């Protein structure tokens, strides 16, 4: 960490977005994480994504559990709503918040311990239910706060800083998310913002449970030889299946695409456009079964498969499943919330 707040001065050409904020307005407090932590890069990617999407900071809720990763919501979007919840329980708190106020943009930040160990059950169910959120898993393969024990996502055979070898099988969070019914699944790397920022934007725009597993090296405890979550290892074994460009609307598309190398994926009701530049010729991110196979094959080869792995063309969220009321509770008055005994009578009568 640093003792200084980041100076307020900024580059003279710093631009404002459509809602009148500069990128700096999306920053939070100064990070207390170790210098060089991948999580800080993910925070920077989130700041960039929210700024580019012209989302007003006060229309965002950021929720997290416990751990290094779950501290990070303090370090971005300083003017948003936040809830640092119980260890592994971010999904249930977020589900409740989302049901109460469907008008906010929800972002859940969690780590490999928070999601793959203590919170594995909650993680599975929030994906299954299709809660409209961007679930960012900051995955470094170790328990950094307790000095570097293997976490549940550490690869079998990978080495700890002091030399011990992991004998347990890893929880593969992207496969699990797919099996549980997540409608948007991606994997990325904290050291590659060009890939990460568009993925975060697409995940935020996705109208259901969107999950990104971000490999985020722990510089203090998991950036050595023998680790499979180090900067060097991930760079050497990174297999990107595609490069994503996210456009907020069809009119906004400014890049030129060559025919055949691009596929378009729907990005939800708000009309965003996902353009995928294919890197692996045979990879189709709308085919869930082939995605699962591809991920398994890559894991076998020791590759870190990154990019947009799956996006369901017809995603829906929990509100659609439950046919809930179309507005946030805080917009309802006493009359709507307590419609009186007559209405109760009618409901009771319908059940007799």
């Amino acid at each position: 960490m640093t003792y200084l707040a980041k100076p307020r001065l900024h580059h003279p050409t710093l631009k404002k977005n459509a809602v009148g904020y500069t990128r700096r307005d999306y920053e939070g407090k100064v990070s207390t994480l170790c210098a060089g932590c991948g999580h800080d890069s993910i925070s920077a990617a989130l700041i960039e994504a929210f700024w580019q999407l012209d989302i007003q900071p006060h229309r965002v809720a950021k929720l997290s559990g416990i751990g290094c990763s779950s501290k990070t919501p303090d370090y971005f979007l300083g003017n948003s709503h936040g809830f640092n919840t119980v260890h592994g329980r971010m999904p249930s708190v977020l589900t409740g918040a989302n049901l109460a106020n469907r008008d906010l943009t929800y972002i859940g930040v969690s780590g490999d311990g928070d999601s793959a160990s203590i919170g594995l059950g909650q993680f599975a169910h929030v994906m299954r239910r299709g809660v409209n959120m961007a679930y960012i898993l900051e995955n470094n393969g170790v328990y950094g706060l307790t000095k570097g024990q293997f976490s549940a996502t550490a690869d079998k055979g990978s080495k700890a800083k002091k030399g011990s070898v992991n004998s347990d099988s890893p929880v593969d969070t992207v496969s699990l998310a797919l099996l549980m019914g997540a409608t948007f699944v991606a994997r990325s790397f904290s050291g590659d913002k060009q890939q990460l920022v568009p993925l975060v934007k697409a995940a935020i725009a996705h109208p259901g449970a969107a999950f990104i597993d971000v490999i985020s090296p722990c510089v203090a405890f998991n950036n050595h030889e023998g680790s499979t979550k180090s900067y060097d290892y991930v760079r050497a074994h990174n297999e990107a299946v595609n490069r994503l460009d996210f456009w907020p609307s069809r009119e906004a598309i400014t890049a030129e695409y060559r025919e055949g190398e691009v596929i378009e994926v729907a990005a939800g009701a708000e009309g965003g456009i996902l353009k995928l530049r294919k890197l692996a010729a045979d990879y189709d991110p709308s085919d869930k079964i082939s995605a699962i196979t591809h991920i398994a094959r890559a894991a076998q080869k020791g590759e870190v498969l990154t990019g947009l792995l799956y996006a369901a063309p017809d995603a829906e969220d929990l509100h659609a499943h439950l046919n809930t009321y179309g507005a946030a509770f805080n917009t309802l008055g006493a009359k709507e919330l307590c419609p009186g005994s007559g209405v109760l009578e009618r409901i009771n009568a319908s059940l007799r």
Partner: protein
Amino acid sequence: MQPTETKSPGYFHKVVDCQWACPAHTPVPEYIRMISAGRYADAFMVNWKSNVFPGILGRTCDRPCEPACRRGRVEDENLGKPQPVAICRLKRVAADLKGDDIRARMPKPAAKKNGKRIACIGAGPASLTVARDLAPLGYEVTVFDQDPRAGGMIWSQIPRFRLPLEVIDEEVGLILDLGVTFKGGVRIDSMKKVLAAGWDAVFVGTGAPRGRDLDIPGRKEAAKHIHIGIDWLSSVSFGHTTKIGKRVIVLGGGNTAMDCCRTSRRLGGEEVKVIVRSGFDEMKASPWEKEDAAHEGIPILNFLVPKAFLHQEGRLTGMSFEKVKAVYDDKGRRSLVPSGEPDQSFECDNVLIAVGQENAFPWIEKDAGIRFDRWGMPAVDKVTFQSSLPNVFFGGDAAFGPKNIIWAVAHGHDAAISIDKLLQGEDIRERPAPGMSMMSQKMGIHEWSYDNEIANDRRFAVPWADIKQTLKNVKMEVELGFDAATAWKEAQRCLNCDVQTVFTTQLCIECDACVDICPMDCISFTPDGEEKEVRTRLTAPSTNLTQDLYVATGLKTGRIMVKDEDVCLHCGLCAERCPTGAWDMQKSLIEMTHAGPAARSPLHKQHQRAA
């Protein structure tokens, strides 16, 4: 791109914008930090070593450092006009608050003279700098001046309400006390005689002593009430002139005109106006001097070309002017053409002509062996300041025409190096490199030995004495200088540009921590390319081509590290967030080498020559 060469002083020197812009290359951030720490005497000594006249320059310098100051490029424009650090006024603080112990820290007069005799003609800033640099080395330096006091234009042309006598006496005294002989009231009227006197070297620092006149109708008839600006100022300084008419016109748009009009206000001028040929914005006077004049109720009228002095029976009654406008040709060159409006006349009792200064060397005989060009200027080498006579040197305004004190000081240092090398039998074209030391500022994981917190204050204004008082007394100083508390706050605005961001490629793991934390978006990791194209795809657009890119190659991913120096705050957050120490904050102390052993050739060369 080629990786940046940081071993030689050039690259990092340029990053310290103020020091780079200063003709004498004073290490500005170094002394500003000392002022922050209350080490005023140390700050004075840094200045004294480099620019010789801290108290004088702290009041009168043309401040080329301030327009260059990075602070003026980084402040948030939404909060008002970005302004540089008040470098010049902080220099004055060092002089004002240095205390009494300064004499003990001065070099002692040479215990043993080396037998070489040097004559300096004119006792202005250039000559005094030569004397200061050479006397402690054992040279016998004699400075001649036609005035009884040493100081030259510092004393005769700059009014006392800008520069009190005590300040001049003190700082000139520090030089004369080094064993320099001053012969005042001696008018040198023959270069041949000087040369015949057998000096080992002669330095000519006689300034640009002739004020330009204006030959228009009525000049002769009304001569009694028309004065040449610099002569008139000098006469005020001597106390010969103590009064002027109620209505005064000052012609000219330079700093001398500003001094003339403000002095007039103090000697009885009630309706004083400045009238310039060109536009207000193109005037040569420093912006702050124009502001000072405006503060004293002096209007500046522009685009008026003097046509005639109006007079009646030998008495000046006014002046008439032709109204002009500026037109620009397709090359952007300006010319002033009549606007067609009727001529304008202004009544007045006196006119002061401050339309420029010229060099004059009537005392240097044509056959003295010194070559002059067709404009009457001596042929002087721009690096060595040597004339066509090997042992005669020129410096200050006498060398290349009117400039200002800080340039005269810089010339003096360079001429002193030449004189020393010449008299030691060395090649004077072999110039010494500046000295540079790099020192890491890291004290602990998040501790630096410089104050890296960025102050958000805007520039502090220097307090002024009450205008009612100052307009009554030509000797009362107008600017009061910062007090210690304000000086500290102003010093905090300095960005410490000399504490450099130094990058070590081998240590970098490309984690992006520096890119993410940098408040000014200075740092990029990007594929290699041509500079012009690379500048277009950095984290923030890089449009200031006068500022360098710091480039490092050989990263593991094959990308290059590019840091745009333009708006770096030197806050050190890149180094604080760097997990491997690939970024370090290192202070680059760059000091010019002055005359003496350090400026001479290495010992082995001297031995070779001796053998």
